[in-house]
């Protein structure tokens, strides 16, 4: 068995309006960062997982994301896996 550290990123699908992102973008612009565009706010989740191998760990993470960590109607997800 191996232990993996995982970093999961959940973001709103491009077709979903992100009013919080729009508000932050206007804040940044007011600070003078006028070149900024496309601010989108998402979620970052960390977890540690023990699995027999990397493929199993990835499979499990996919299931966790599909079933709970992300709502695929409105969100996309991706993750990184680092063996400890």
């Amino acid at each position, binding site marked *: 068995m191996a232990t993996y550290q995982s970093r999961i990123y959940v973001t709103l699908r491009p*077709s*979903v309006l992100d*009013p*919080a992102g729009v*508000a932050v973008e206007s804040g940044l612009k007011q600070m003078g960062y006028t070149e900024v565009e496309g601010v989108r706010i998402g979620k970052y989740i960390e977890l540690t997982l023990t699995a027999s191998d990397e493929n199993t760990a990835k499979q499990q993470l996919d299931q966790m994301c599909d079933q*709970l960590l992300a*709502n695929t*109607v*409105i969100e996309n997800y991706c993750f990184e896996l680092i063996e400890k």
Partner: protein
Amino acid sequence: MKFGIIVFPGSNCDRDVAMVTQDLFKQPTRMIWHQETNIDDLDLIVIPGGFSYGDYLRCGAIARFSPIIKSVIKHADQGKYVLGICNGFQILTEIGLLPGALIRNRDLHFICDRSVLRVENNALPWTKAYHNQQVITIPIAHGEGRYFADQDTLKELEDNQQVLFRYCNNQGEITQESNPNGSLNNIAGIVNKKGNILGMMPHPERASDPILKATDGRGLFESIINR
């Protein structure tokens, strides 16, 4: 009609609904703790408003894994009635019993206000007591009530007349200004294809007791009780 009202940790409109079904409409009603699984005796399950599991991760995301939910799915598959109000609507979309999702309001505010709605389809057991296109006022109280679905799902909802309530102005016109939260197509409430599952953001239980001087929600309970 036997009502059951699910209570999650964080539910806060459960007793308001019981007040209406039990005290106002004199229907047998029992509260169902979310760890229970036997609901065979009930005709209609209400998933009430509130903040189940603190709305952690996403509204309704964790409630979906409570033991009671498997029984709710079975109950719905048998064609029996399920009513999700506010947080209950969010939970129903998370389960997948209703399509789409409810996301952060367009203007980022929690909105607690009276909302004006148009009854879009009164041919269903939920809305028979209303006239078609009747304009009613029912309170809303939510931060995540913006209805979202992809274009194909929206088209299907519209083609099958699954939209039951839409935000409108006092004249019954569907306008952007009368859309409090940015919901697509001004959607405030929808049913599944079969029509036995209703999810809505407005709170009909808060507009049923005459003492509150707002009674436009009564029609919903009258309709389903006399279906």
